[in-house]
């Protein structure tokens, strides 16, 4: 017995095994998406159940407060909402929707995820497939263009905005006044911001060490960290990717934008280079920093709720981000609700998403839950008694939606959006921690993104 035939035989066996495995793996996940059987909106005798997958952060709030309100109008649609931690929500949704019989009828997707989900072919075209179940007074044109576009991909409307959000600037007016610095308005420029920053780092108790600082935001390795410098880039008139989806940030404008975020660390509390969502938020709530670049949705817990914050509504300002070379900045972050095309009850699923994004639903959500709306009519309305704190927020949102729309201030609209964000997060963190310069970080990121998008 020589070696060669045995080797060949072994190779053949291994090859055969792999090939078989390929077939097995491929064969295990076949499924056909047949035409959905509409179960209507249920009857008292035969109620229908709609299951929703959502961010754990608001799943319970919706289940306990929103669903009973919805059931006043549709008593025969039972709604079960499952929460998943934010960071795992997209992957869980993808895993579920790619099955032949998905568990969930309604998917709540963050701003950059719609293309990825739509690409799997598992979402309903709301303007076409759901048209038959859409109420006549459901006004598509009432939405601001920017939030509505978050649910659109490739010319098809797959989602509607159900919880809107924007990256905005929060200010602690007391700290500005104490430092003798004028309280910012929406006209504040980045140059003015950095001019004022050194004056806002102060020692208030006279022990010779600074104990309040000028600013705080995301600096750590997080997929939302790059959105800060991306907003600066957008307000200077730049874009992350050009029309052909080639990186367009590896240039002087990009370096200037990223450097803006790096320069903030100097005027931020000690340890800020590791700060992300929670840490920067806490620093602001404790009255330690004069400004914060943060998602608007934290306003209630930051300015209103005495259990979570040391600040009061009259102390906290909220406005668009500072003005760059072209315009003010805001970065879009919209939660859209999409309906699964494989759902057994698409009509009931759409009834729920339709109600959530309707004029009536938006007004109720904004006033009762403090959830941000996306409709012009809602943002122009007067908040109900007890929700007066919403008034300045509505103003900032209206202005922010306009800016975000004009400057295309959102994450890339691609199926690969999250992967792009992952690359940007890593390279941004290397730059904020001083591991590499802004220029090197952007060069690395551009090379990786170019390779990824091929």
């Amino acid at each position: 017995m020589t070696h060669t035939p045995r080797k060949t035989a072994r190779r053949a066996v291994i090859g055969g095994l792999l090939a078989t495995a390929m077939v097995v793996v491929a064969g295990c996940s076949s499924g056909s998406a047949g035409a959905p059987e509409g179960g209507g909106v249920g009857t008292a005798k035969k109620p229908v159940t709609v299951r929703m997958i959502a961010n754990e952060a608001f799943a319970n709030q919706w289940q306990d407060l929103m669903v009973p309100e919805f059931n006043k109008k549709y008593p025969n649609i039972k709604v079960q909402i499952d929460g998943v931690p934010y960071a795992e929500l997209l992957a869980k949704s993808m895993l579920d929707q790619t099955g032949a019989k998905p568990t969930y009828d309604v998917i709540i997707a963050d701003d950059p995820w719609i293309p990825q989900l739509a690409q799997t072919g598992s979402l309903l075209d709301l303007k076409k497939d759901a048209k038959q179940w859409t109420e006549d007074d459901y006004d598509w044109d009432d939405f601001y263009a920017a939030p509505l576009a978050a649910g659109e991909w490739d010319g098809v409307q797959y989602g509607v905005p159900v919880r809107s959000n924007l990256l905005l600037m929060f200010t602690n007016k007391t700290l500005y006044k104490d430092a003798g610095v004028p309280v910012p308005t929406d006209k504040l420029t980045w140059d003015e911001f950095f001019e004022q920053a050194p004056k806002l780092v102060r020692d208030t108790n006279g022990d010779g060490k600074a104990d309040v600082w000028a600013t705080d935001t995301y600096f750590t390795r997080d997929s939302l960290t790059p959105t800060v410098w991306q907003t600066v880039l957008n307000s200077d008139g730049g874009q992350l990717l050009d029309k052909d989806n080639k990186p367009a940030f590896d240039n002087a404008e990009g370096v200037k934008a990223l450097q803006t975020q790096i320069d903030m660390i100097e005027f931020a509390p000690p340890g800020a280079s590791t700060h992300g969502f929670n840490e920067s938020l806490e620093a602001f709530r404790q009255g330690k920093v004069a400004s914060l670049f943060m998602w608007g949705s934290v306003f209630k817990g930051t300015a209103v709720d005495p259990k979570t914050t040391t600040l009061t509504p009259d102390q906290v300002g909220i406005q668009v981000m500072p003005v760059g070379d072209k315009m003010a900045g805001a970065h879009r972050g919209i939660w859209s609700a999409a309906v699964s095309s494989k759902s057994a009850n698409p009509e009931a699923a759409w009834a729920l998403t339709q109600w959530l994004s309707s004029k009536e639903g938006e007004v109720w959500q904004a006033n009762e839950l403090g959830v941000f709306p996306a409709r012009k009519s809602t943002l122009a309305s007067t908040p109900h008694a007890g929700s007066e704190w919403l008034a300045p927020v509505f103003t900032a949102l209206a202005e922010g939606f306009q800016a975000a729309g004009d400057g295309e201030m959102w994450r890339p609209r691609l199926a690969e959006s999250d992967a792009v964000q992952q690359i940007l997060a890593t390279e941004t963190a290397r730059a904020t921690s001083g591991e590499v310069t802004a220029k090197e970080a952007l060069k690395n990121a551009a090379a990786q993104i170019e390779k990824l998008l091929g």
Partner: protein
Amino acid sequence: MSIAVRSHRTQRRVGHQVRIWAGVIVCLLFLFPVLWMVMTSFKLPKDIFTVPPTIFFTPTIETYTSYLQYADVPQRMLNTVIVAFGASIVSIVAGAMAGYALARIRIKGAATLGVLILASRGVPPIALAVPMFLVARNLGLADTHIVLILAYCSFLIPYVMWLLRGFFVALPKELEEAAQLDGCSRMGAFFRIIVPISLPGIVSALIFSVILAWEELLFALVLTNNFATTIPVAVAGIAGDTVNGANWGALAAVGTLTVIPVVLFALLVQKWLIRGMAEGATKG
């Protein structure tokens, strides 16, 4: 207590005292962060991140009362108990038998099999979790206790097997010989003689298994949605709160609550962690 006359006996007693106190001090050092967690659980969110840290504050039990109603903690706690104990018991039985085979029984190819089983632990868990979900979904088992128990067995069995092999190797060989002479079958000898003698090892492996399954997050996250979700998933959800920021009071409260059952369990099974099992067995 008789009066000690011989100096080295006093020396030994002093040594004994030193040993006890050193052990207590090490334990306290290790428990400091835990103490901090318990303290945090009684604070309102705005009191948690103060500068300097608040040591004296008005405790509130709000974090416990409000959160327990909010996140379905009792149901998730029950799921955690079912899954952790189910997986641990299966793993201890299967793992102890396999460990014994590797330590004591001559089988052609067993050593290779043991190494393979151990090496399977080198696969990053996320690479296993996704295909496991696909299989579970095709079998209609997604979001069930059984699928989580099996997934946990996949990493507990190799650990238990290898740890207990270490304990079995150290046992005197005469044990089985005596048993064989008494006409016990292999299995009989194992369960009647070897297991009772190795109880300290088996009990500590059991505690270890329960803890590992108790705090496992990744498989629970991927394989369950709602019905069989465990506490660590709930915790990850609070920590990842993107609306109001992580509620550290609630996190610390849930953290504190989840520690209690395991500590009680450990106290309960301590009584089998006693010296002297291995003695007398060979003297008989």
